């Protein structure tokens, strides 16, 4: 697979600072995700753990274009990146992963349920396809209130085979509500490839069947993601109708940490395949673009990386030193 060539934006409204911000965000996502396995192996994190490595452009190309408050984000259990993108501090994310009182869900949610409603993030969702019916409701509320706003709903290729997703997309198409769907097509529904799980792998076609327009985007190129999302968001804000982006991407690691610990991912994909996708790394691609356009130097990049590593290390330290939730909080928040 050849390296993707990044072409200059056709939109022209992308600022240099936006690109540097996107680069920084992708690096932050990568470094945070790299740190979580270590914390898990040190028994500081429990449960399931799903990393976003390789898919950073899907978040960095879209969420920074949203306005909070007003817009909303819903995501799946692979949600660390989305929380970072809306602005949830890394320390609150790490604290949540470690089950601490200072976590963004007070230690009640964990990795799959990062939440930051004040920043528009309505949470990760542990159920495949789960956020899509919710997005219908959020979208309906935005339409009902007539105050603008878009709901961005992330979900995976595996979710497209869930019944509730189609019920909801049908209603979204029917009621015409302002939702941007981002189908994170990373080729594998857990450990089953799209080819082996999906009779019609043209997901955009499926969206169109529900009356929702959409397009296919290369998710290894943050500029392309950004452009497509920019157009899609404009369309949604103008028409009030939903839009569907199928974004191809690749997760470098296993579905979850168990998959990586046991190297079970080798049962469904080839190491060479992973290496090939790594050659198209979205962060490296963006760096090349920034360097070629004299927007960043290696030194600047390294310095940024060191700062990010320090931020992640500080987040780990903060979480480590944070108290566990008080036991009497067990029965709190069952009801509002």
């Amino acid at each position, binding site marked *: 697979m050849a390296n993707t060539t990044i072409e200059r934006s056709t939109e022209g409204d992308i600022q240099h600072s936006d690109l540097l911000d996107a680069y920084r965000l992708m690096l932050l996502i990568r470094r945070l995700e790299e740190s979580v396995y270590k914390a898990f192996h040190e028994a500081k994190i429990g449960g399931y753990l799903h990393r976003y490595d390789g898919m950073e452009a899907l978040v960095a190309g879209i969420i920074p274009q949203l306005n909070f408050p007003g817009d*909303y984000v819903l995501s799946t259990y692979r949600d660390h990146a989305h929380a970072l993108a809306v602005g949830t501090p890394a320390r609150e994310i790490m604290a949540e992963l470690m089950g601490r009182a200072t*976590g*963004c*869900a*007070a*230690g*009640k*949610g964990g990795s799959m*349920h990062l*939440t*930051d*409603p*004040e920043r528009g993030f*309505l*949470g990760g*969702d*542990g*159920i495949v396809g*789960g956020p*899509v*019916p*919710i*997005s*219908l*409701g*959020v*979208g*309906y*509320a*935005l339409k*009902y209130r007539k105050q603008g706003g878009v709901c961005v709903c992330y979900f995976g290729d595996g979710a497209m085979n869930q*019944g*509730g997703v189609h*019920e*909801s997309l*049908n*209603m979204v198409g*029917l*009621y015409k509500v302002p939702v941007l769907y981002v189908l994170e097509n990373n080729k594998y529904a857990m450990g089953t490839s799209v080819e082996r799980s999906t009779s019609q792998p043209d997901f955009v076609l499926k969206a169109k069947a529900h009356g929702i327009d959409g397009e296919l985007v290369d998710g290894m190129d943050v500029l392309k993601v950004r452009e497509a999302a920019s157009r899609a968001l404009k369309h949604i804000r103008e028409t009030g109708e939903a839009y569907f982006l199928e974004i191809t991407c690749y997760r470098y690691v296993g579905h979850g940490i168990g998959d990586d610990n046991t190297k079970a991912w080798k049962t469904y994909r080839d190491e060479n395949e992973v290496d090939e996708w790594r050659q198209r790394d979205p962060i490296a691609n963006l760096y090349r673009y920034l360097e070629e356009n004299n927007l960043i130097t290696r030194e600047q990049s390294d310095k940024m990386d060191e700062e990010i590593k320090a931020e992640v290390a500080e987040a780990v330290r903060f979480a480590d030193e944070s108290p566990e939730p008080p036991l009497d909080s067990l029965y*709190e*928040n*069952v*009801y*509002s």
Partner: protein
Amino acid sequence: MATMRYQQAIRLAMTEEMERDPNVYILGEEVGQYQGTYRVTEGMLQKFGPERVVDTPISEIGIAGMATGSAMVGLRPVAEFMTWSFALEAMDQLVNHAAKITYMSGGRIQCPVVFRGPAGVGTQLSAQHSQSMESWYAHTPGFKVVMPAFPDDAKGLLKTAIRENNPVIFMEHAGLYGVQGDVPDDTEFLVPFGQAKIRREGTHCTLVAYSRGVHICLKAAEALAKEGIECEVVDLRTLVPLDTETILTSVRKTHHAVVMHEEWKNVGFGAELSARIHEGAFDDLDAPVERVGGADVPMPYAKNLERAAIPTDADVIAAVKKTLA
């Protein structure tokens, strides 16, 4: 005070709350143009328009998700399931989303949604449409579960449900829609959750029930009174929160209890009631708590079999006599 049917009282509650709060809207299958399968929402589309009275496709997951999602960002949806049997389709959205989002978010997201519709058994609807599954919801932390027996409670409890900041499972009974009763006109008539009501006082045996079971128990109590046995009938009104204290106070007086419901007896809500009574009033019991519930079978179609599967006043009377034996 006006005399009206249970079904009209529900409509009145929704109408009043929609007039009071623009965030309230209703959605469901055939709630609008068709005027509601049981005519509960009759006239509401004409009154409030299609944005606030939303006809949905036959898509229970979509309905539940739409209601839950819109509640998470501040609307107050009242979603109708044509019957609670169909809500089984939406169980993931109900149990894994609506009931848990507040907890999973550490209290940062509220979910003020009402799911309502007819439950209950009878009228030869057979296995897939004639069942009562309140204990499924009562079992799940995060839901409040409401089952009114009378028109005034139907209004007052539904208004409380709509103003509640948590997901409410509001189970009506198709067999009660025609029941008449006095209903307060007051637009602030709210019946609080967690307060059972003594529908009949008695000294010999406490009958605990809800929804149509209350009517069955009242009938049984009347018959027993002719034999000199005075039963106290406790109408729970809400299963969650449960007014354990009113139940225990009654049992401490009568020393005998029969718990009754239409849903299956096995692992039914009556088992919880029985356990609570044994835990809270063991030393006051003069006999084990008796349970009356539906036969543990999928509801049969044939009339005679169906009759045998649904608990009646005769079953309650027999249980009372057994506990007093």
